[in-house]
């Protein structure tokens, strides 16, 4: 059976597709070095148009109105520029209500696209543009540590990581946050207090990483103006041993916190990239495909062993019966403390 992959690794080559949700303009070139906050593409996600009824405004027929329109599609206009007219004894005219571009003119009407701030797509990670994706974005390549999470509030930032994680099963409380953390991205344990988010906004922090989070925090985290990423899941869960080591050893480094929302169809999940220099002999493992097999390092994603990592000892050829009574293909896993547990394959992901 195909093994889904989670990346929790101290050093790897990382290639990321950064794409606009809608076609737009790419403003980087192949080979260009970018920083995490650099804009690589932009698009009009919230277009705004104004339809001007020339015929009605000038009190003329549609045909006559077309003759009186002074602008053609594609022309840029500024506020109060003449659009149509003059007409009649009073020399009625239609002027541009705002600055923008004429997109359609005819049938007695003019449709303008008015200037609105474009949506900017940031690089998210520092690296090199290796490919351009026409009208959509670019592929960025870098090297470093990579830790993937399970939930994000859709925001991204780059900054210094400060850990408030004493152990894999610690909690993050509001009294652990103070002004000395201003501008930092804080890594904390389990959090169930929405006021932690409020205090983070007041300091302000640049981002928050929770090992796990209470579900009541979700609406608050979604409203936060900084990225919030959850590593293990909802409810109290300790951080897996591999992730703990990677993150704690990189305390004080700059990280790219990409708290993207999970998209199963696009294969997107939130992640932390810690840029580190490395040689050229690293391979991009993001598209690694393998079936489950003995010896693989895996992470368990469901109760009763959620968050634990270990290695596959044996794979069952026939369905196994689990405490719930369900029967499914499974594997025997040796956990870090040498305990042997039986887990459905559907509840495992391979750690790379």
């Amino acid at each position: 059976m195909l093994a889904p992959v989670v990346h929790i690794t101290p050093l790897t080559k990382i290639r990321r597709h950064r794409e606009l949700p809608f076609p737009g303009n790419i403003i980087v070139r192949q080979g260009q070095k970018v920083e995490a906050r650099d804009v690589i593409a932009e698009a009009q996600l919230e277009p705004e148009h104004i339809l001007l009824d020339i015929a009605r405004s000038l009190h003329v027929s549609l045909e006559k109105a077309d003759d009186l329109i002074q602008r053609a599609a594609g022309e840029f206009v500024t506020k109060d520029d003449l659009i149509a007219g003059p007409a009649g004894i009073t020399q009625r005219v239609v002027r541009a209500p705002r600055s923008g571009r004429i997109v359609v003119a005819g049938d007695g009407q003019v449709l303008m696209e008015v200037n609105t701030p474009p949506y900017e797509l940031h690089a998210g990670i520092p690296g090199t543009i290796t490919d351009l994706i026409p009208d959509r974005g670019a592929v960025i390549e870098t090297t470093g540590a990579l830790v993937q999470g399970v939930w994000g509030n859709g925001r991204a930032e780059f900054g210094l990581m400060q850990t408030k994680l004493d152990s894999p099963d610690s909690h993050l409380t509001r009294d652990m946050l103070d002004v000395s953390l201003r501008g930092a991205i804080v890594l904390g344990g389990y959090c169930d207090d929405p006021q932690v988010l409020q205090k983070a906004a007041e300091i302000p922090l640049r981002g928050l990483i929770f090992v796990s989070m209470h579900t009541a925090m979700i609406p608050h985290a979604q409203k936060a103006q900084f990225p919030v990423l959850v590593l293990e899941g909802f409810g109290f869960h300790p951080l897996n041993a591999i992730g703990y080591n990677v993150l704690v050893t990189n305390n004080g480094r700059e990280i790219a916190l990409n708290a993207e929302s999970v998209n199963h169809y696009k294969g997107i999940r939130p992640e932390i990239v810690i840029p580190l220099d490395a040689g050229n002999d690293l391979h991009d493992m993001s598209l690694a495909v393998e079936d489950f097999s003995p010896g693989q390092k895996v992470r368990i994603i469901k109760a009763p062993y959620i968050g634990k990592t270990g290695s596959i000892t044996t794979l069952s050829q026939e369905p196994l019966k689990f405490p719930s009574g369900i029967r499914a293909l499974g594997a025997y896993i040796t956990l870090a403390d040498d305990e042997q547990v039986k887990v459905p394959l559907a509840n495992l992901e391979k750690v790379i």
Partner: protein
Amino acid sequence: MMSSIVVTDSILAIDIGSVTTRAALFDVVGSRYRFMAAGTAPTTASPPFSDVREGVNRAIYRLQEITGRLLLGSDGGLLIPSQPDGTGLDKLVVTLSAGANIRVVAVGLLENVSLESARNLASTTYATVTETISINDRRKQDERIDAILRARPDLIIVAGGIDGGAEQSVHKLLEAVGLACYLLPRSQRPQVLYAGNSAIQEAVESAIAPITDLHMAPNIRPSIPVEQLTPAQAQLTKIFKTIRSQEMYGVMDFDQWAEGRILPSSTAFGRIIRFLSHIYDPKKGVLGIDIGASAVTVAAALKGELTLRVFPQLGLGDAIHQILNYMPIEQISRWLPEDIANDDVRNYLYNKSIYPASLPATREELFIEQAVARQMLRLTTQKTMSTLPPAFKSAGQNILPWVEPILASGSVISHAPTPGQSLLMLLDGLQPAGVTTIVIDQNDLLASLGAAAEANSLLAVQVLESHAFLNLGTVIAPVGIARKGTPILRVRATFENGTETKHEIKFGSIEVIPLPQGQNAQLHLQPLHRFDVGMGGPGRGGRVNVVGGTLGIVIDARGRPIQLPTDLDRRREAMQRWLWTLGN
């Protein structure tokens, strides 16, 4: 019903679900079609493959291992037609439910008339209506254009005006649609389905067709009281295929190999339910429910008239937590037979949405998932019931109409640890009324059979008659309310060997009369206190012939709608007792 063979084509049915891809093989054994075996593999629509063909190939390889029959050639292509040495297959049918929901903008003249019909049409497939536009919404034309652009639709359904009715207002709405499409890059323009006033089809054609792909369908609201979705559903199926082909690698290949027989799984599911409604009791409808990872599909048909509703915002996969948008968590936790905190239920839902393919390995997680399934069944059937035509008769408002049989699909039901758990989920969730048979689609074949029925209707009939489906038993559910412990039904069962048993059923209980699979019995039902078993009205009884099933004859005397004990301990005790009665 016996039917004889007239064609001998073997059929490979591929079902590409959001989590699992299945390859099922049907062929002739001893002059009748049989389901041979199925191979499954994870669906590979998302990275790293981003191509559904990999998952399909893996499912077919697994099927080859199980059957020992070669279906793929050395070039990796399907061996069509079948060969005298037993390799290959004759026909391929494909059903598809994988993929993000289709984003729809629904446009209609009046909010409660044509716009409602446009919404109803969208609800027959895997679609989410992200924006609606009507003449009631008071927005200016440029605001409507921006609303369409911001909605980023894959499809715009325009349903305006009854036949012979308003034209000018429809043109105004179409102008906004046309301009919005025009403003998008050509490759990003949505499909447009026009299913409004037939009198202006030509004008619509000349206004929209030069800008984007336009599909025409007969008016879905030809008059105020009449809604006809079926002809437009055929167009919707074509559009679904077009959109999926554009966004998902491999779909186009399968459509060619299947000679155009690729269908949305929900459409195929509806088709088989409609097909069955021609076969079963013409006075009752047939009900099908598929509770999948990406959606819940409810199909009800009576004498060939189908009502199909797809709920892509629900399902037990990545949208599972969205059930909390429809009900307080207590509605779910009331079905838990053990003490599990609401926080744990909420955590389970959100964690499951992160890993939609994961399985409940502990008892607690299984109970939560089954509780959610009950509420999803309840919610979706209640919503569907309000759209059923009047020909469906029921014992009262919010009571499921008399149907025979009920077919249930989806792994939470078909792969529950015990048949008793499967049945209890359906009894609690659907709350069937009267006398009906419950059939489980244990091999997840219904959608495939719906797709195959077009190519070979005999296959569908014969496979349905085979052991590929699990008959859980006959359910008798008297409708009414009484005090717990009050006798509400007398049953006299006469078995094939001439023996007879008598039962007095008390309100609040579930009773089982054993009747093994394949055996027949005649029941004489005598409802008391004006309880209704669907035999002509409250208090009316009669004789009914029933066939045995895994659980025999199950009498659900908990009344309709079920009133669970309000006391927590008594409720849990009752649930455990019901589970125990059904053999858990």
